[in-house]
């Protein structure tokens, strides 16, 4: 990455730099509903304004019916509900415990599973070996001709 070669896009995002081209959809869009700026008074919150251009101080108006469809039901929004009001401070451990962080690279359950899987293999090998030895031991006298 070469930070020095990067363009500064701040002006485009703040509006201080005009766009290189106009909006592809601006001409075709009908009158647009723009929600009113949030206000402490709930009545202000439900107010909507009609805006067709970048007018900075539009007058609050009753919500017009949207073009070509059924109008929006007049539902009270209630008082402004602050989205981040009950948010815990950033940096607080969220969604994970300290133990989980410490054990990021070690899954104890997997270790136990593998340990028992290993024991199972050892047991299987022991059983086969024991059976083979026992079988050999049992058959040895017969092979040696001691028993008939």
């Amino acid at each position, binding site marked *: 990455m070469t930070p020095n070669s990067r363009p500064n*896009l701040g002006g485009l995002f703040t509006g201080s730099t005009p766009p290189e081209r106009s909006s*592809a959809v601006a001409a075709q*869009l009908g009158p*647009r509903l723009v929600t009113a700026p949030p206000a402490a008074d709930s009545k202000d919150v439900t107010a909507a304004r009609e805006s067709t251009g970048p007018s900075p101080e539009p007058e609050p108006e009753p919500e017009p019916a949207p073009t070509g469809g059924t109008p929006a039901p007049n539902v009270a929004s209630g008082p402004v509900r602050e989205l981040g009001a009950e948010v815990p401070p950033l940096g607080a451990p969220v969604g994970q415990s300290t133990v989980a*962080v410490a054990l990021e690279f070690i899954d104890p359950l997997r270790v136990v599973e593998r340990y028992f899987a290993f024991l199972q293999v050892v047991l299987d090998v022991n059983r086969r070996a024991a059976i083979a030895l026992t079988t050999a031991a049992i058959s040895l006298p017969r092979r040696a001709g001691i028993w008939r």
Partner: protein
Amino acid sequence: MRRVVAIANGKGGVGKTTLTAGLAGQAASEGRRVLVVDTDPQGNLGRDLGYGLQDGSSLSLAITHGLPVEVSRGVRDGLDVVPGGPALWDVGAAFTSRGARGASLPGLRPAVDRVRPEGIEKDYDLVLIDTPPGEPILQELVFAASDYLIIPTRSDEASLDGLVVVAQRFAAARTVNPDLTLLGVVLFGVRAGSTRLIKRVESALDETLGGAAPVFGTSIRYLESAAVDMRSRGLLPHELERVHHGDKSARINRLRKGVKVDTGDSLLSRDSSAARLAGDYTALAHEVLAAITERERRSRVEVAV
């Protein structure tokens, strides 16, 4: 009061859809009423949220003809979805042909404004709109309908170049929607522990943004196995974490009974990494919501002055 937030970048594969689903799911799981609108003709949001793929014709007709949009209710508790799909490819053509005739179209905002939560009087707290990367008309329609924009990006040059594209579209859209505000940029899909890389990219992003908006302090880590687990099962990060807890109990029971572990349908990700990923989304959701609250507070002060 609803806040309409677009999630966009000029480049594909930077995590827009996954981020939309994760943020929406997290906000809904904390008791907020959330609507997600998928304007992507690929309709991949269905995989992240675990509902079947749809054709998006309802949303397409709502944008072009003002018909009422169909809503998938209760995708999660407190989370409704307006699905996308291939029919949204028609929107660009409709705009081109009507533009040639000098006719207007309703656009996205009236369609979204008419959608209300079912059974309760109160409105959605948050409306998140997932956008397609390569469809300028659809993306500008979304910008014209949104209050805020969040830009996810990866650390590579091509993803950062996508910022230039989205900045031009953003500036153009502000001619019809002067209230549109860039809320911030999210670094998505970074490998855990790559602190130096993160610092370097954040610094480059800060320089590129020129102080217009912050780079969110929380980045979303790259975890391929968790991503596969989530998409294959239609789980969100915090849900994968819960599934891991359930899976752990089942494994302990199998150990107690001496039953051999069947790895065929087991999760690929580790529970600790799922927890960390869920933690990323929780922290980011809180950061985003706090940023919106702060913008609203500033707005109120300006109105009062």
